[in-house]
């Protein structure tokens, strides 16, 4: 089929862990990601699949946060680098902040968790999709609604909310913002 087929692996359904809160309180399912040592989250319903980082073809005339395009079952999809989106430099030279490749995954090995960089395929509008390159995929967490706090959108425009988890705040990413409906008209660097 496609040459990049072998580079991509569908890593299973992203399903919530069973150890989630059992009470009837309202929860939102979040996929926890790591970028430059910080934990971020995206709503699970926006995640289409998670693939290994295979061959990424660079595309000229796009801003630096786009690492390139990948082939995903016959479709060509742009991949954004989360670290660069967040203004944290390239994700590709992020080795020092990554744990050793074989560091134990947080819990029993569920397919989607990784200690290596991954591309999270996010669902955009109208059946379209975009990839988001992250340093690793941590877990799915059923976050209680009560733990959500509004984020400072003025200073962190890509963060939708903050959620308290184990005494630390997880930044919930504004997927629509990242998939950049507002920069869809970008036509290359001004020369």
């Amino acid at each position, binding site marked *: *089929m*496609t*040459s*990049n087929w072998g580079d991509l692996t569908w890593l299973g359904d992203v399903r919530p862990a069973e150890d989630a809160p059992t009470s009837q309180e309202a929860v939102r399912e979040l996929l926890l990601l790591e970028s430059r040592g910080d934990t971020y989250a995206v709503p699970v319903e926006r995640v289409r699949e998670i693939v290994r980082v295979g*061959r990424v*073809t*660079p*595309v*000229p*005339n*796009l801003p630096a946060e*786009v690492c390139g*395009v*990948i*082939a995903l079952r*016959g*479709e*060509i*999809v*742009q*991949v*954004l680098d989360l670290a660069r989106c967040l203004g944290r430099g390239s994700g590709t030279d992020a080795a020092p902040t990554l744990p050793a490749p074989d560091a134990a995954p947080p819990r029993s090995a569920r397919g989607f968790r990784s200690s290596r960089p991954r591309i999270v395929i996010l669902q*955009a*509008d*109208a059946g*379209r*999709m*975009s*990839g988001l390159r992250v340093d690793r995929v941590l877990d799915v967490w059923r976050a209680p609604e009560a733990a959500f706090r509004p984020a400072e959108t003025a200073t962190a425009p890509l963060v939708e909310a903050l959620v308290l988890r184990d005494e630390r705040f997880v930044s919930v990413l504004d997927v629509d913002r*990242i*998939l*950049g*409906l507002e*920069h*869809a*008209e*970008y*036509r*290359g*660097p001004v*020369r």
Partner: protein
Amino acid sequence: MSERDLRPNAKVTREFLSEAEDLLERLRSGLADLADSVSAEEPPAPDVLNGLFRAAHSLKGLAGMFAVEGVGALAHQLEEVLDALRLGRLAPARSSVALLEEAVEQAAAWLEWVSSPQSPSPGLESAQDLVERVRRLLEGPAEPPSAAAPGSPAEALELDPSIRRALTEYEEHRLGENLRQGRWVHLVEVTFEILSFEQKLSDLTATLREAGEVISTLPAPGDVSEAQIRFSLLVATTLDPDELGERVETHHASVRALNRPHPEEARSHPEEARSTPASRRPAPEAEGAPEESTESSREVESLRSISDTVRVDIRKLDELMNLVGELVIQRAAVGSVASRLLADETTRRFGSELAKLHKTFDRKLQDLQARILDVRMVPLRQVFERLTRVARRLRRELGKEVNLEIRGADTELDKLLVEELVDPLMHVVRNAFDHAIEPPEERVAAGKPAAGTIQIEAFQSGSHVVVQVRDDGRGIDTEAVRARALELGLIGPEDTCSRKELLELVFAPGLSTRSEVSATSGRGVGMDVVRANLVSLGGIVDVDSQLSRGTTISFTLPITLAIIQALLVRVTTQRFAIPLTAVLETLPLEPGTLQRSQGHELLHLRGEPLPVRWLHDEFGWERTPGGKPYVVVVGLGDARLGLVVDRLDGQQDAVIKPIQGPYRTVRGIAGATELGDEGIVLVLDVAGLIEASGRVREAA
């Protein structure tokens, strides 16, 4: 009822949308015909009213089935009003036709909203208001034209009661209308073999329609065998039974007159039987007037021909095309295995067998590719018909005399491209009507015929299709363009611009806005938008104009988007594909042959200057030092451009795919393709690069 309730759920399928669009198109077309007959103060053709009624009825059913209530409510009211019109309970008026057109557009807006949730939701209030206004048409002063005929018109006929009972209200109305107009009413009886009756009946109906109006077709009881079926047709016509009998002789049908109209009255317009389907009132005052040929010649389609076509979602064809594209890649891999086997002494025999198979496979694959491409192709006729309708409306609204001439409507183009071409074409035709064609007095004073002419012509040119819109209006005043461009800072005061360059400026954003230039230049809104749309399709727009002689706008488009022959080139370490259809030639770039002109590079090519761009520069990369670069000369329409690349890597078939993601357009890149072991290869946007290079030159 909240907006949420009106929003259809997942049940709304693409089939629904495409069928609904067809119906809307039929409604639009029918309403345009209706508006024409109202303007001409003629009674509307029953076929038109019937078609409209059926379309509204189908739309209502469809909307109901898919729970699109907004459309359903509108369609219901449309149906009611159209029913009243066709039964003669309501007389059509300009205002009511306009209201119906508004309702159809509202329904179109709902569908738009259904198909793409991002589009603005059509206001619910205004929709309900519209439904109400359409409904109120029914309360208007009824003007029953058949009031003159006392009692049921059918009673005056020598008609079998069993047939009379079977007539619908509409058929009775048409019968009365025809009797009132002093026509003959005949009963045509015919017997067919069951096996072939569909085709034969439709042939007979077609013949009868040429002679008059077929009011009703009823299966008739009679002394026939089981393998046969008998029909009685009620036909109203100006022909007497003998004349009609002659016409249907070959169909073995018998004709019996049911009435005896006043012979003088019915016979005074024998030409009517030939020219129109009998619907028109015999109007003595219309006699000397030239007969305007009806633009929509109604074809009588047999049931059989309808069942032979299949409606296919274009996306399914895309999927097929993708599969073929992948097969093409596999084919190349098989070919390379074959040549490896051939090269080795021990495997040569298998190699040559495999090579033979590969060749056969190759031919079949090319066949398959061509057939699938062919399925995607549709004639431009549909688009041109829409333009004709818009033109008719503009003619009425603007009160300008303009003849629209259409040529090459059978030229075929990829369905997707046809859809995308509608808006730009519409735009250009509207502009021509609105601005280019002068008022009649002005034209006569300039020594031109009072009526303007807009020609739309399509033709194939190599692997491209050219669509030209030519008007004989006032043309573009290049001096006014220069003044305006100076004002906007698009050119400097010292710049010398050729006439061609000045014309090109019409496409610059902001230059051609209506209020500023229209009075002098004759061109209107948003030509920059038209050009941007075309370029996004891999096409190009050219303009040519002679002051006071007219303007020609040419669209050049690739015939299909789906599969291309590509020239592979290398720029630094990355491969790119250039659609071969746009490649004119390739040549090595000899050291020292590049010249500079005002900061831009030129190549001397057979006596002509060729503007040259390095793809490295386009992509913001370092030019590769040393090496032996090549120039790929690309061209679209009249424009030429040399692209400098590091290496040529041969040709390949490629399926162009769009790049998904946040950035919908990437400068210089039209899409991507997957090529065997290469992985993804980006496809250059030749139209965009030529465009950009032209802009740079203009700005220089």
